[in-house]
């Protein structure tokens, strides 16, 4: 289905949806743009810049309550309540890379044997209304990892800015359902303009980099710690890259106890942290930042593709590059491994 919606009507649509669902949209606050739950009086900021934090939290919140434990008294048996996510979510205005990112979760959180009810419930109850990109930032490389500025993978509706509104294209039946809303109008021949725009955006990205040799080349460097020490020299071992990343899916589970109540929470974990692999014995198999960065890059460009149909676990959004306080560039590291000669 192809339709058109004006900018004003998109805002109205968001408000309309917010009455029945949790709507997440980019909002400008304090000089930055991040995804916020839309509440009345807040205005969406779709165009000033790509949101600093990815829309990952819609399907994989930074803190997620898994269960609650309550006890009436010391002598009573504790009662456990599972807290599965409720209700429907709509993400408006994420970019194609952000929508695609969550696909990386699927083969991990939903397998024959293991099904993660929290992620699956959220994923199946979240609609992504994605905005195609006009032009690439210096950190963008989505087209090199299977995506593109108008990629539809992971989205339910794709919007392309044309004049004072958006050409909307449905990708899934759920998206089509939303587009039956009266605020959408006939697209006329604006679709052609959208196609031209999308094609131009892709063209502006230049030639895509070929990562097909990366899995083997990175694995070949696995034991070469000199290589990783040099590559990680400027890394400061914080977690900005992993927390910004739409595809990083590692988590931690902890119990927060308070008196006779307790909550079991799942939170984003960070493989750049020393504690990520710290064992109870005190031994740490990844003792230095070089070991940790090797894992981060290796996981995305080598180990994951080897396990999951050659899919690179990176959506090319570039957040890890531009938000890195030290300017570590993952593209450069993979290139260095690919081009390495003994």
């Amino acid at each position, binding site marked *: 289905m192809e339709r058109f919606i004006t900018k004003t009507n998109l805002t109205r649509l968001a408000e309309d949806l917010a009455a029945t669902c949790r709507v997440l949209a980019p*909002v*400008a*606050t*304090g*000089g930055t743009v991040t995804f*916020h*739950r839309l*509440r*009345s*009086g*807040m*205005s969406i900021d779709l165009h000033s810049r790509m949101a600093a934090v990815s829309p990952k939290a819609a399907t994989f919140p930074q803190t997620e309550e898994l269960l609650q434990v309550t006890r009436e008294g010391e002598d009573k048996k504790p009662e456990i309540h599972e807290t599965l996510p409720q209700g429907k979510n709509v993400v408006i205005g994420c970019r194609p890379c952000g929508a695609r990112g969550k696909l990386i979760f699927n083969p991990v959180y939903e397998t024959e044997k293991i099904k993660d009810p929290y992620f699956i419930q959220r994923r199946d109850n979240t609609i992504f209304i994605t905005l195609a990109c006009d032009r690439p930032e210096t950190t963008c490389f989505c087209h090199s990892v299977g995506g593109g500025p108008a990629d539809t993978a992971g989205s339910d509706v794709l919007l392309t800015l044309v004049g004072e509104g958006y050409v909307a294209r449905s990708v899934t039946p759920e998206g089509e359902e939303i587009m039956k809303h009266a605020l959408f109008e006939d697209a006329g021949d604006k679709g052609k303009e959208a196609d031209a725009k999308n094609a131009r955006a892709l063209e502006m990205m230049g030639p895509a980099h070929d990562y097909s040799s990366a899995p083997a080349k990175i694995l070949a460097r696995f034991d070469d710690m000199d290589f990783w020490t040099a590559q990680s020299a400027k890394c400061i071992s914080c977690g900005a890259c992993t927390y910004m990343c739409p595809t990083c899916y590692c988590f931690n589970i902890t119990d927060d106890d308070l008196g006779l109540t307790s909550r079991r929470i799942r939170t984003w974990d960070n493989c750049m942290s020393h504690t990520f692999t710290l064992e109870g014995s005190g031994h740490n198999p990844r003792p230095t930042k070089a070991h940790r960065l090797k894992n981060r890059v290796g996981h995305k460009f080598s180990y994951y593709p080897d396990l999951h149909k050659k899919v690179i676990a990176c959506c090319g959004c570039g957040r890890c590059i531009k938000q890195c306080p030290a300017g570590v560039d993952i593209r450069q590291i993979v290139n260095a491994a690919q081009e390495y000669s003994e």
Partner: protein
Amino acid sequence: MPAQDSRELRIVGFLCNWCSYGGADTAGVGRFIQPTDLRVIRVPCSGRIDPLFVVRALMNGADGVLVSGCHPRDCHYSEGNYYARRRLELLKRFLPITGIDERRFEYTWVSASEGQRWQHVVTEFTRRIHELGPAPLFNPVSEADWNALALKASQGLGCSCHG
């Protein structure tokens, strides 16, 4: 004596084992009437008190925090309270930038023999906290509080250079 008005507030007291805890004991033995809002945590020395104990208590919802140790020159470990004085003074001066009312935190010196002084300190501090009322919680509690906060955030508030 119960709280100074009908409800009790949560006041945390960190008392040094050698002086102030003894002082509180002396006040008790002497049957000096004291408000009961204060929950005492005994520590070996005021120098043991990481200012972050105070911060954590305030962030977790304490309405007031009182630290009391040996008078300067009287520290059981000679120097502990000198370090404590520097740390606690800085903390007290720092609190205003966070928007936490600095009057919710106080540090003072009470020796083991000063039962009367302890009564005065605890009564005065409790009175002050009751005047201030319950402390606001840092995490918004209700959905409405979150709404209000999010809305304010999206409109920009606070710092001119950061919108």
